[in-house]
């Protein structure tokens, strides 16, 4: 084997081992949820460890040749992953004007997902079921989100002139089933008296009552990171109380439960 070929093999083996080590590290890091649903972290860990081993074997296998495009692909992957994790925060809240909803919080923060959660919250004499936006939407057909039901949700405020005129704000989150690439925006319209009092991009908890309403036709709003958004065509949440709060758990929706206690 020629010297350049040997160098290419060593480089390729090193990159493959590095990619595996990166995956193993990522699966145990607080950044994992930014890219993939944590339910798959064991899969990433296992694959990462095996790839590290394979990289070392490739490195030591004198008869093996490398191909430049294979080396380029591994280099590109590691560079993109570094940019995704170390780059500027893509989900920083937008300026306090109209604009796209964001997906909640700052990706450079870590989030405590282990906080014990109560399935309900009681304010005054009303008990609200805590659930996430996707669970609220799924509950319309699943039977747990019915007219006049009381619910507590959290998400980022999204406003447009059309929503303001209709007396709504939108509360949005990203639902990540497998990975960020398949993320879907989930939006609930919240009926409020003064939309202008709510800062776009702020993270809020809404206590409200599910109320039938005509489908709202405005399609201009979007959720950062999602190509499409899902929202109810039949109900809005009539707000009883809205307050800015820190994100509870992680900003993305990672789970949809079909009975209480919901994932919130």
């Amino acid at each position, binding site marked *: 084997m020629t010297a350049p070929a040997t160098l290419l093999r060593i480089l390729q083996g090193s990159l493959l081992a590095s990619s595996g080590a990166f995956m193993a590290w990522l699966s145990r890091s607080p950044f994992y949820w930014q*890219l993939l649903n944590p339910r798959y972290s064991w899969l990433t860990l296992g694959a990462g460890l095996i790839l590290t081993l394979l990289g070392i074997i490739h490195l030591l296998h004198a008869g093996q040749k490398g191909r430049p495009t294979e080396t380029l692909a591994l280099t590109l992957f590691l560079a993109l992953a570094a940019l995704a994790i170390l780059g500027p925060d893509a989900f920083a809240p937008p300026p306090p004007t109209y604009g796209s909803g964001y997906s909640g919080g700052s990706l450079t923060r870590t989030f405590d997902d282990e906080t014990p959660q109560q399935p309900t919250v009681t304010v005054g004499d009303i008990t609200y079921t805590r659930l996430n936006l996707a669970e609220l939407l799924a509950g319309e057909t*699943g039977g747990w989100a019915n007219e006049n039901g009381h619910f507590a949700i959290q998400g980022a405020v999204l406003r447009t002139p059309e929503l303001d005129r209709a007396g709504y704000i939108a509360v949005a989150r990203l639902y990540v089933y497998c*990975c960020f690439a398949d993320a879907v925006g989930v939006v609930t319209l919240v009926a409020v008296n003064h939309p202008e009092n709510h800062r776009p991009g702020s993270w809020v908890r809404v206590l409200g009552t599910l109320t039938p309403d005509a489908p709202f036709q405005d399609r201009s709003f979007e959720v950062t990171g999602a190509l499409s958004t899902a929202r109810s065509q039949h109900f809005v949440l009539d707000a009883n109380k809205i307050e800015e709060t820190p994100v509870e758990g992680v900003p993305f929706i990672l789970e949809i439960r079909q009975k209480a206690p919901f994932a919130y």
Partner: protein
Amino acid sequence: MQDLVIFATAASAIVLEAAPFLLLGSLIGALIEVLVSEQALLRCIPKNALGQVAVGLFAGMLLPTCECGIVPVARRLLLKNVPPRTAIPYMMAAPVVNPVVIASTLFAFQGDLSIIALRLLLVLVPATALGLALGDARPADVLRQRPTDLKKYDAAEAAHLPSGHDHGPGCACGCGHHDHNKLLAILRHTAAEFLSMARFLVFGGVVAAAFKTFLPPEILAAFAGSPALAIAGLMLLAVLLSICSEADAFVAASFGSFPAMAKIAFMAVGAMVDLKLIPLFLAVFRRRVALALIAAPIVAVYAVSLALALGGVR
């Protein structure tokens, strides 16, 4: 800069999501290559044409895998002289005809059995058609002359194709299948196969992430007006986004303004043709076969979806 970071996040996520399955596919391929004799494999396959196609169509129920890892497995089956009319239908159908994907589709569409039935139909039609169209073709007729990146094993493997040579005990072909070295042979095969396939995954993932990040969402809305446009629009999007078949149902379900048949076409075609698979097809299969693998599912899914939509189904 925000878009660039979102693009990098989406591209990395696609690779990270698919890599374990590609690794699994590479490992299964290596295990088949090193441990399973050709005779044992062929004993599981019926002699008649319809039986061979049927085994391919439903093999995914026993060996669930998504499209991210299916090509290395199919390629290895072909190298073991499994008939193309079994291996090709398996490659096309298994990413959908498997219990994991069926369950995730049912969950995303809240238990609607008609959705999963139609999704299976849209996958089984082109997979069956491709299997039957291949007739008595041999593996060497569908694979490229040098189909792998296994380098030092290539000549030996290519030479084995026509003769059906098996790497059994005492084989001195030089591809590492010595009795005392099977584990190392499996690992080397897996590494070489993974490296060869991963470059298509990375480059495909980059293009798919670019579409996800930079495609204006309002373009989608323009397609929602008629069934013909809606089906075509979501099928094109499925190819461009290259979402894993285990997750695509959740994305499909979010296209609220699109007719159900367009969503089902999105889920069906994306599992058979996408930006990760197209370069893999072109690298592994002869050009005519690769083009058929790309064109047949697109034409069949569109035609059947449109006919069903115009006929009032969903």
